């Protein structure tokens, strides 16, 4: 079962490259053959020379980032991108969602579809498609949304997972909230699940946990790739009976996102530390799991070491992060001794789903990315409610004064389209708000 990744825009192409890097090096170091084989089958195929070629399509409107990613991949010596599986042109989308969605997307539809089709044909069996992009810019968000729509049309029965990078709150692009709102509202109809990384959170992980002084995009992308890799690498599921599950996207989606109103997934992984410190640290499963549970309850996506004790914080009180469904992924030594009962507590979840339906556990005894033990939690909870609400509110405030709207209407996105998007996201916000 293989996953075809579609990397869109600058962010998508950079994160994608880091992801394949993490996956490839992790699978190569894996002591178990079946684990490596499973991972390679999932993300790579072999070309005539025996090189590992990523099952990926690279799409950007400018050639620069694609060239960089391809060169980096080739330089790694372990894997590469397919020679012809990329598409770029010379003119960007100018951070305008409408330009990407209404102009660049439709114009290049055939080429992109052909690239994806070729990549899909290389798979013995397609587990699903993963589109990676940011929501702030024009190409990732606009073209990405359009391409996701095409993928949905082409593969109506395949699983489509969108990995989105949400921008810094302080702002990268003036119209980032417009772009984000339009992207999210559209993807909510198309995608099976939307996996989100927030730049702010990841930035904090880089500065506070990894002690990086000058944080570059590459550092941020590495953290995202680490967390994503930990979700996507092979693992045993409850009913896989000692065989690595072969349908990562399908299992992920059916564990977490079965309800059409709840599709936003957040991810966090512990521990994360500078690679130099890993060798000198020891972890215990009870400690890690307790930590992760506290992070889940208090909705902190980064381990900070200071938590209110559970007694002072009532489970129903303000600031409690209610979950709809959680997927816990444990990787590393003695994984079968880990006791995960704390995550099955019905108080963590909404009342209308039983904890058997809400909680899923994956395990793998193979060390992940050099960490002796690693816990990853993918959560469909209220965790993303606040950033989403901020995003929609900022965009609405701008829209109320019609700021920059003419930039969108000139490409064919009407005010009505904006209003539709606002409405559908308000619905999402209200659904998550009512989760109790």
């Amino acid at each position, binding site marked *: *079962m293989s996953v075809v990744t579609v990397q869109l825009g600058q962010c998508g192409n950079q994160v994608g490259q880091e992801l394949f890097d993490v996956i490839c090096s992790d699978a190569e170091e894996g002591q178990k053959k079946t684990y490596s084989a499973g991972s390679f089958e999932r993300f790579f195929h072999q070309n005539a020379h025996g090189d590992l070629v990523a099952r990926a399509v690279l799409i950007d409107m400018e050639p620069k980032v694609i060239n960089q990613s391809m060169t980096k991949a080739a330089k790694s010596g372990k894997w590469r991108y397919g020679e012809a599986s990329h598409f770029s042109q010379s003119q960007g989308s100018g951070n305008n969602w409408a330009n990407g969605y209404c102009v660049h997307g439709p114009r290049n539809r055939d080429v992109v579809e052909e690239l994806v089709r070729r990549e899909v044909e290389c798979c*013995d*069996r*397609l587990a699903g498609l993963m589109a990676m992009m940011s929501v702030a810019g024009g190409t990732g968000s606009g073209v990405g949304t359009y391409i996701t729509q095409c993928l949905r049309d082409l593969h109506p029965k395949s699983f489509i997972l969108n990995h989105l990078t949400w921008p810094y709150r302080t*702002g990268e692009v003036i119209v980032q909230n417009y772009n984000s709102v339009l992207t999210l509202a559209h993807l909510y109809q198309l995608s099976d699940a939307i996996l989100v990384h927030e730049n702010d959170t990841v930035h904090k992980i880089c500065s506070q946990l990894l002690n990086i002084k000058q944080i570059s995009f590459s550092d941020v992308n590495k953290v995202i790739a680490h967390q994503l890799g930990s979700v996507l690498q092979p693992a045993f599921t409850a009913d896989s009976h000692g065989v690595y599950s072969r349908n990562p996207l*399908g299992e992920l989606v059916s564990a977490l996102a*079965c309800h059409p109103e709840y599709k936003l997934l957040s991810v966090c992984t512990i521990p994360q530390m500078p690679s130099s410190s890993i060798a000198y640290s020891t972890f215990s499963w009870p400690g890690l799991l307790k930590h992760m549970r506290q992070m889940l309850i208090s909705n902190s996506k980064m381990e900070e070491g200071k938590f209110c004790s559970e007694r002072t914080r009532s489970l129903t009180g303000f600031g409690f992060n209610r979950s709809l469904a959680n997927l816990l992924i444990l990787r590393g030594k003695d994984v079968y001794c880990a006791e995960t009962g704390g995550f099955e507590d019905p108080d963590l979840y909404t009342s*209308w789903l039983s904890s058997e*339906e809400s909680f899923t556990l994956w395990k793998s005894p193979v060390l992940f990315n050099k960490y002796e033990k690693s816990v990853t939690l993918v959560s469909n909870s209220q965790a993303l409610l606040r950033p989403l609400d901020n995003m929609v509110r900022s965009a609405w405030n701008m829209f109320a*004064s019609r700021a920059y709207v003419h930039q969108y209407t000139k490409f064919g996105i009407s005010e009505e389209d904006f209003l539709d998007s606002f409405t559908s996201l308000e619905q999402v916000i209200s659904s998550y708000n009512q989760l109790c």
Partner: protein
Amino acid sequence: MQRSKSAVSVEVKQVIGSLCKLLAATGLEAVPTPETIRRAKFGGGVEVESLFRQLLANILKKTGIVSSEACVQFKGDDRKLVAAGLWQTGYHAHWIYAREEREGEGMEGRSFSSKDLLLALGWLLATGTLENLLTQRVQQLDKTLLTSIPANTEVSDELQLDSASLRKLQWLIGNLRHQGRILLSMLEERTQLIHAVCSASVSSTTPSFSDQSSTVLKDDCIRMRQLCDLLEAYVNWKKVEKSFWTWMDSVVECHLSEPVGKRSTHVPNVSPRVCPNGNPELQKLEDMLLKLPTAQKGQRGCVWDTKDIGKERTHSGLDPSSLPLLFSVPSLPSLSQTYRARLQAEMPVRHSSYHIEGLDERAKAADELQASQAAQMLLQTEAQLLERRDRQRMANKVLLQEMIGRLDELVLIPP
């Protein structure tokens, strides 16, 4: 019917050929040749008729419309069996009743023309019999297929429709849908693997290999090949199905345009039955046909009007016992409502063409009334829905304008 008739006639033989192939692939015995079926449109003869009768009897037996006990009862009398079977599927043609009566009078002879039987075959195909046959055959051939577990689909009356259980239900439906997709992709992979194995076994002609292969494998291989042939035949049929129905339309037209006198040679002893008073059975059938659309309309209206759809459905919508007129047709196949409605609407018209004036008018009036009522009802509903939509739009617009109005006073400084 946009296609020109000449173009259709060229294709007809091929189209019927693909149907015959498919019927043969589903395991039916004694499938007539394409030419026989084509000739049936123009009357055929005794031998064509008997071939058709046999085919229909086989289909009815195979799909279980006529039970095996009933087959024993009929003691090999295909005519009775076909008539009874067609009645079971909801096909009520005059010749089905003609038999009983004539037998009572002790008359022997041809009871129905091959064209009647051809139309009956068309009815069976249109009601999904072909798909039933196909499913049966596939289940026979494909031993790895999971048989569906009969599930209790009845919804209990105590079902609470609060938002929490509704959400849970939506979640479970979503989960099932995802599981379905996972299974589907597994099926695709399996098909690919089977194909790989099949093509490998075809290409390897070394005797040592074939010697080693066990009989089980051989059987499997034969079954798989049969399955492939069957599915291929079905795909071919699906491609040309449209043309077949165009041709079938022409058969119906031809049947309707035939002068009454000519038809009566095929169906002897028609004249006594024309009088409705003299034939209570026919009268009963006629009444039944006239009431049928009313019953359906009532049933549909019921589902539309109700607010509490979930509850109501258990009472009216899907329960056949609520339709007193349909209870005698226990295994009414599921098919699209529109198609059924059309065929039934045609029936009274067809019948009326050879009955006395009074009945004719009555049938026509009833039929027209039904259609116009239905159309009016649809128009009304459409108008209501449109009005409701417009109202909703208006309300939304006002709300948004208010909100924007409030925000207009804010001065926004971009960050």
